[in-house]
């Protein structure tokens, strides 16, 4: 280090404190919109950039530790930044910048929450997520986890006058806490009598037997899965995301779900020294089911934010598929392949943060412009909101996994990892895993379907409501935030090699192997995960060739023929009457999926009969798991609490008897 000793951990701590300070500053002038949106939020965005830059540099450095004597007397906070934390801090920083910039333009006065209150909740949310990534002991981790859950709960119920929002927030908080219990128990098992709860202790000790390690892993999967939206603990996602304001949904989808991925990786690869192969298969299977479930339900949604929420479930499933593969490979000592699978999973985390945030922010712009969330009342917005529409197109193409954008890179890496599985020692796995690759390919194709529906119904076609003609485009800070994220999507897609190189340090830390050498073997232009003869892909050449051909053809046609255009009515096969109600609705677009995959849905239909006075048709598509799992569990919980509620009589005599009985018992047994 030439002339400064820049210690990344100190800078990160500084940024966390800065965010908390920004939040507190918001409380000073709560209703002053200009102050919050022009000063505080952009400052938060700048801090995000600084965080990302610091963490990026820190990824290739050694791990740094620090002990802060806050917290309880005997439990100081341990903080540590290593390659894994640094990667997720980069993710947080970049996403937070885009969302903060957007929020600066999006926040309005007159909502249920005052701007200052939103500011404090928002910055506390960001600060707690950053703390999770640098926590080095179980105590600080849980404190930060809880803070994140609470601050996001308050953000979710920003429109607390609406009853549906409140119940969505309640469900969210409930499942978050159920998951937190799982994580706490997992830390308890991992600590295995080591004395304290620091991660260093957990790394050093081994749980007593393979059985206990499995218990720890299953608890981690349960706990972190609840936060990530893994089946069957996913029910909060499609409720909470639509209820929250769009920038909050963006951060929740883009960053908060990744804290669960971070936790799972930390526990599995860092805190536990060995992995058992069937954990990987279980994670892979769960991830596959989650991904399929998410995309199928996304295809039948009619609310644009619910559609994106289910799509988040799908993407979390894909990340878990990658992690499951990595665990399986590692358990069979195939380290290079495990590194490839892990790189695919982490790259997908980063990609998802960018394109999901972008899409949620786009829905925010649309919502502000039109006041409509239902897909059945939108349409034709590309004419009145061109900037938003074109940036949304980038996001849509990215999330559908199309080259040369970023979604395709992680899909490509993941499919490459799948094709290497025939080297596994177990013959059942050898045959089942390619079948899983088939299901994964199906998921990718379905996500293209879903995104065509999303983009086409909102932005293309004719407007389905008259008021849509008055929709205004995004301005100022909103535009800046969207541009930042869209640029990220394009850059991550076209120049993936530097990122993969940096991810090499993460995989080296977690698995002990890296694919960085082979990846750069053919230069920065091509990705060659194993050897160039095996597979290679160059997104930049893609982009350049397609752009060159487009330009060339355009010029040639103009040169040889002409470029004249006439406007007229749409042909429509000669039908004279064309109204906006004749184009496909969102339900119509999802109908083939509903028909083919009928078994997955619980469809309730009311079909009109000829004898109805006022016939109507209604169809509701719901989640079966809600009725199979959540409702019975809720009933059991209610009954149990009813029995225990018997204890509560309301009469002072009874309570005094309770105290007396306890005293007697203690005197008898605790001599």
């Amino acid at each position, binding site marked *: 280090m030439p002339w400064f000793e820049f210690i990344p951990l100190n800078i990160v701590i500084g940024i966390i404190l800065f965010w908390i300070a920004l939040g507190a500053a918001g409380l000073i002038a709560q209703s002053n919109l200009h102050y919050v949106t022009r000063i505080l939020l952009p400052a938060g965005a700048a801090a995000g950039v600084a965080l990302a830059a610091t963490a990026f540099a820190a990824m290739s450095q050694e791990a740094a530790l620090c002990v802060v004597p806050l917290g309880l007397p005997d439990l100081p906070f341990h903080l540590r930044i290593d390659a894994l934390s640094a990667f997720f801090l980069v993710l947080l920083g970049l996403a937070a910048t885009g969302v903060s910039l957007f929020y600066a333009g999006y926040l309005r006065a007159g909502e249920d929450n005052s701007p200052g209150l939103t500011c404090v909740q928002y910055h506390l949310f960001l600060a707690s997520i950053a703390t999770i990534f640098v926590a080095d002991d179980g105590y600080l981790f849980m404190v930060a986890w809880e803070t994140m859950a609470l601050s996001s709960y308050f953000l979710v119920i920003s429109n607390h006058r609406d009853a549906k929002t409140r119940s969505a927030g309640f469900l969210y908080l409930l499942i978050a806490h159920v998951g937190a219990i799982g994580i706490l128990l997992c830390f308890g098992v991992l600590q295995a009598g080591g004395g304290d709860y620091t991660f260093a202790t957990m790394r050093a000790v081994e749980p007593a037997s393979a059985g206990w390690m499995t218990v720890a892993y299953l608890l981690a999967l349960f706990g972190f899965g609840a936060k990530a939206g893994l089946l069957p603990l996913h029910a909060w996602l499609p409720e909470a995301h639509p209820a929250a304001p769009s920038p909050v949904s963006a951060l929740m989808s883009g960053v908060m779900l990744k804290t669960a991925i971070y936790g799972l990786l930390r526990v599995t690869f860092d805190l536990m020294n060995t992995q058992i192969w069937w954990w990987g298969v279980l994670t892979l299977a769960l991830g596959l089911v989650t991904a399929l479930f998410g995309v199928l339900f996304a295809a039948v949604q009619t609310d644009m934010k619910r559609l994106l929420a289910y799509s988040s479930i799908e993407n979390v499933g894909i990340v878990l598929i990658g992690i499951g593969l990595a665990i399986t490979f590692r358990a069979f000592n195939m380290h290079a392949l495990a590194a490839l699978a892990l790189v695919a999973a982490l790259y997908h985390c980063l990609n998802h943060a960018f394109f999901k945030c972008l899409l949620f922010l786009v829905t925010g712009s649309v919502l502000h412009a039109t006041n409509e969330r239902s897909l059945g009342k939108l349409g034709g917005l590309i004419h009145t909101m061109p900037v938003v529409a074109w940036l949304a197109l980038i996001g849509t193409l990215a999330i559908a996994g199309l080259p040369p954008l970023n979604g395709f890179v992680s899909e490509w890496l993941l499919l490459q990892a799948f094709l290497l599985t025939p080297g596994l020692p177990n*013959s059942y796995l050898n045959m089942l895993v390619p079948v899983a690759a088939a299901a994964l390919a199906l998921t990718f194709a379905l996500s293209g379907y879903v995104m065509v529906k999303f983009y086409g119904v909102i932005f293309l076609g004719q407007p389905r409501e008259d008021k849509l003609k008055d929709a205004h485009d995004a301005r100022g800070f909103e535009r800046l935030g969207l541009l930042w994220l869209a640029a990220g999507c394009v850059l991550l897609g076209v120049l993936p090699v530097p990122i993969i190189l940096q991810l090499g340090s993460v995989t080296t830390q977690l698995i002990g192997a890296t694919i960085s050498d082979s990846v750069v073997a053919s230069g920065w232009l091509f990705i060659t995960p194993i050897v160039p003869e095996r597979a290679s892909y160059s997104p930049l050449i893609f982009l350049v060739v397609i752009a060159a051909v487009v330009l060339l053809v355009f010029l040639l046609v103009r040169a040889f023929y002409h470029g004249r255009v006439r406007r007229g009515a749409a042909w429509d096969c000669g039908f004279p009457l064309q109204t906006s109600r004749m184009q496909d609705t969102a339900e119509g677009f999802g109908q083939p999926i509903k028909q083919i995959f009928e078994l997955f849905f619980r469809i309730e239909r009311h079909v009109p009969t000829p004898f109805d006075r006022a016939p109507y048709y209604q169809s509701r598509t719901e989640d079966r798991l809600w009725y199979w799992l959540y409702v019975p569990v809720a009933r059991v919980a209610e009954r149990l609490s009813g029995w225990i509620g018997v204890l509560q009589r309301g009469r002072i005599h009874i309570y005094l008897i309770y105290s007396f009985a306890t005293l007697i018992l203690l005197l008898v047994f605790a001599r």
Partner: protein
Amino acid sequence: MNLPFSAQLINLMASLLLLIAFAMLSQRRILSLIYLFAWQGAVLCANTLIVAWSTGQPHLYYSAMITLVLKVIILPWLLHRLIVRLNIKWDVETMINIPITMLIGIALVIFAFNLALPIAQWAETITRSTLGIAIASVLLSFLMMITRRKAVPQVIGFLAMENGLFFAATSTTYGMPMVVELGIALDVLVGTFIFGIFFFQIRETFDSLDIRNLEKLKED
């Protein structure tokens, strides 16, 4: 891939057999089922001929002849006459829809392949890797029997199962002793006759060949 050419041909025949078993599972018309069954017999005959030629076992030639006469000519002709007289050329109805049936079929194929791998390792014939396919086609035919509602596809499933067993025998032990072979052939022929008689009886009693009607025979 340095197997001798005859081994490659046998592998090809095996995969054709599996393809036909899957095709039978997805058919909707009884007439196509009968043609596929005839094709399956032809593939079986060709396979036996190749094994006979490459391993020099003359009794397999007779086996192939019997297969040709019985399974490619006589049985399909009998079945064709049966359905013409019963007048049932319509669509095959299934209990569960065809895509799900295919998925279950794939799962059975994976199961059968994994079952066969350890056995294939200590068999000594050149056709040992085809045991998995033979087991798979037996299981698929069984699945076809389970998931059909009319009686004729069930019979065809039974016959296809016997085809699969025959293929399994050829692949691991170069065929069965001639006596066993003739006995099984006779059993199959007689069985088909009896089935034909039963079909008429069922049709007379219930006026339809839907086997769910047989449930009415139980006492309660």
